[in-house]
């Protein structure tokens, strides 16, 4: 039997035993729901993934999009597959009933889309970016803009992009040069070049709604002079029908290492005098609005990375159970049959590492979805504020940790399979290539580490930082009297180390060169990320322990034992790494800072 895409038992464990998603039905917005409707939505997500995307997964990878100078050509099977997602109601299940949604809680939405994301992470990007785009316009656009652009995007008629990066301004957005000139009718004429625009051109939809960052003529330098514009591929007639082509041209496609389901484009705006553009909100506040979409996209990136890791793990696990090779060291009899490679302890080590990385990462992303829900629908204002504070703080970790350790899990999936993992008869090498983008886009790991240490930690008098520490300390206290007290103590010691390190490094910013102090910010992010994942594993361990106490069925008992073993793996093999990272940070290790470009 072929490997399963994801473990449904694990999905159910995370949703119902770890995060108690059923309790959400007590909220008015979700009153019509029950575990039955949640499970039905998840079943449909799986069915669409297996029917429409799994059969074309490799084809999408081996047939990258082409550009003939006029149009983009995609694998023809992509369009009907995406249409099936929209028709099944899986594009935006969390939206209101009135707009065709299912009012599904975000944590359940995440699970319902999990199989799709695991099988078609990048192809699905057309749809997920469209809805993130629509969510931004809904939050910051005018009523007219919502009516004009959001509705057709929700219906699947239009698709959306986010256009930020320029040839000379990627991570350094402050230097972007695309400009917009105000016209007498209130619209703008926009011109400039954008690159790495995912889904920037295709024939999948009637229209494409670009959200473009640009500078209004005369705006201040730096990020304070950036505004946000809606720039459609086709202008609309008075009656809303598709009109003439806007001054947006496809300059070319990029050939990517992976992620071939989603075009990456170079777009030229205003080559014929200026693209018609509509300002979102107020001038010079564009970056703030764009963060609405970027924060959402960052959680999407983490989730995609985690799911690609999970599906690679499932594939390698299945292979390791089936593939006979070698004998145990103690067995010297060449006549005895070779054993499945999973019988070798080192293969189990690599599978355990994948399990610890992937299931830790996905649990963190589901926690992020839960917070995103709580900040809107929790009963009390206090609970909503707390969720907002936690999510805002955790965003760089939710984006980065899965993105860094997801590819590492895929790397180990290849290693488990040896030479068979390195060839395209099996998908694990593709998973690795697909996943390798994730530490890069939506803010690189370096950028995220500066965001965490420089902004998120000290922000609002350490509100997010403190709230997160309090959450983790709370779990430590709960676990202390239990079977898992040794793990609780390890986490507590790690939390003390984190607090000390944070105090030392932030105090140093007052005295030393900022670039020196922050030169180990990635180590700080690594340390914080590992502690958060240890915390989420302790929570999984507690849920598994509770499951074991309830006299479970044999298969469930094995499942819970596996959870506890993966938690132990993380605490024994991964968590101690934080002491190495913390030393670099608190010693203000100057090795990288002092290295001169000429010494290379």
């Amino acid at each position, binding site marked *: 039997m072929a490997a399963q895409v994801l473990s449904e038992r694990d999905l159910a464990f995370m949703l119902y035993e770890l995060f108690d998603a059923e309790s959400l039905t007590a909220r008015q917005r979700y009153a019509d729901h029950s575990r039955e409707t949640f499970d039905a939505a998840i079943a449909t997500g799986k069915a669409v993934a297996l029917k429409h995307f799994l059969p074309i997964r490799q084809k999408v990878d081996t047939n990258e999009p082409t550009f003939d100078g006029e149009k983009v050509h995609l694998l023809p099977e992509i369009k009907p597959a995406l249409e099936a997602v929209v028709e099944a109601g899986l594009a935006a299940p969390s939206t209101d*009933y009135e707009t065709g949604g299912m009012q599904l809680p975000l944590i359940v939405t995440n699970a319902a889309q999990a199989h799709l994301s695991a099988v078609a992470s990048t192809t699905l990007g057309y749809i997920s970016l469209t809805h993130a785009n629509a969510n931004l316009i809904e939050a910051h656009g005018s009523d007219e803009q919502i009516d004009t652009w959001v509705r057709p995007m929700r219906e699947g008629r239009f698709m959306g992009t986010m256009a930020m990066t320029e040839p000379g301004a990627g991570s350094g957005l402050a230097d972007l040069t695309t400009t917009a000139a105000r016209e007498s009718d209130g619209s703008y004429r926009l011109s400039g070049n954008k690159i790495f625009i995912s889904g920037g051109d295709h024939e999948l939809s009637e229209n494409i709604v670009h959200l473009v960052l640009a500078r209004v003529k005369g705006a201040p330098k730096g990020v304070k002079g950036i505004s946000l514009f809606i720039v459609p591929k086709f202008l609309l007639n008075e009656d809303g029908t598709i009109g003439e082509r806007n001054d947006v041209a496809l300059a070319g496609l990029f050939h990517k290492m992976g992620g071939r389901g989603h075009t990456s484009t170079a777009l030229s705006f205003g080559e014929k005098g200026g693209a018609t553009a509509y300002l979102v909100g107020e001038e010079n506040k564009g970056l703030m609005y764009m963060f609405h979409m970027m924060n959402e996209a960052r959680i999407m990136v983490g989730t995609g990375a985690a799911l690609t890791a999970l599906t690679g793990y499932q594939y390698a696990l299945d292979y390791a159970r089936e593939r006979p090779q070698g004998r145990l060291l103690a067995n010297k009899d060449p006549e005895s049959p070779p054993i499945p490679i999973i019988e070798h302890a080192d293969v189990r080590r690599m599978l355990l590492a994948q399990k610890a990385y992937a299931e830790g990462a996905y649990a963190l992303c589901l926690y992020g979805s839960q917070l995103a829900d709580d900040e809107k629908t929790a009963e009390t204002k206090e609970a909503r504020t707390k969720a907002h504070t936690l999510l805002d703080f955790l965003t760089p970790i939710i984006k980065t940790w899965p993105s860094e350790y997801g590819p590492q899990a895929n790397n180990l999936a290849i290693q488990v399979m040896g030479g068979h993992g390195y060839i395209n008869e099996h998908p694990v090498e593709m998973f690795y290539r697909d996943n390798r983008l994730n530490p890069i886009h939506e803010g690189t790991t370096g950028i995220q580490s500066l965001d965490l240490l420089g902004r998120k930690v000290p922000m609002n008098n350490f509100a997010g930082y403190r709230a997160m520490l309090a959450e983790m300390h709370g779990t430590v206290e709960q676990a202390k009297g239990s079977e898992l007290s040794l793990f609780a103590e390890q986490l507590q010691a790690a939390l003390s180390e984190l607090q000390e390190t944070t105090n030392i490094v932030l105090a140093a910013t007052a005295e030393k060169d900022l670039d020196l102090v922050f030169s180990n910010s990635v180590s700080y992010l690594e340390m914080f990320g590992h502690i958060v994942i240890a915390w989420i594993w302790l929570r999984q361990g507690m849920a598994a322990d509770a499951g074991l106490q309830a006299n479970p069925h044999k298969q469930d008992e094995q499942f819970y034992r596996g959870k506890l073993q993966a938690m132990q793996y993380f605490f024994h093999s991964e968590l101690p790494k934080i002491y190495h990272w913390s030393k670099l940070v608190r010693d203000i290790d100057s090795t990288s800072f002092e290295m001169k470009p000429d010494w290379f």
Partner: protein
Amino acid sequence: MKVLVAVKRVVDYNVKVRPKADGSDVDIANVKMSINPFCEIAVEEAVRLKEKGVASEIVVVSMGPKQCQEQIRTALALGADRGIHVETDAELQPLAVAKCLNALVAKESPELVIMGKQSIDGDNNQTGQMLGALSGLPQGTFASEVNVADGKVAVTREVDGGLQTVSLSLPAIVTTDLRLNEPRYAKLPDIMKAKRKPVENVSPEDLGVDVAPRTKTLKVEPPAQRQAGIKVSDVSELVEKLKNEAKVI
């Protein structure tokens, strides 16, 4: 035209089932349950008939414990209009199910009854035929194609020698084979709409049916494990083993 569709709650086809330790039955504690795959095909066929304008109402019926409502609602999400749940915790054997269905056929007067040819748990392949005998309605079993026209239904049956097409006067009973259609999945908004569709609850007693089992399960055990093969040294050893161990010559 009213169509009555029967659906059975069974262990999901992906689950590897095991007998209970005491050998009394299959262990279904905590395992995933779904609509029997053949019944799913029956629901799909009814929904397609409705989409073609042939059927006007689809009534879905399931029998068994309270949780059977899940399978009824799944069918409602796929396109059935209303449900009937014959609720009982008793063990239901094909004859009891056929009797209940017969009572419902008398009550609802459907022109077409569509059901799976068998369920993947019992593998009996009896209920449709029994219902045919009890109700006196014509039956087309193992259907791989169904066409309704002019008060008749043409059912193409998968039989050993190939395909056989029978023409039945309505009302009639059709049991589905695997190749009849490919069932759809429920669209998310339809899952919520299904919750607002009516489901009537009745008991076997309400239908005047005694569901007491007529056959008794003596023991449930897993199939014998296959023994590993061995190498024989020569032909005479092979012949000796075939004679005395395998006892095939």
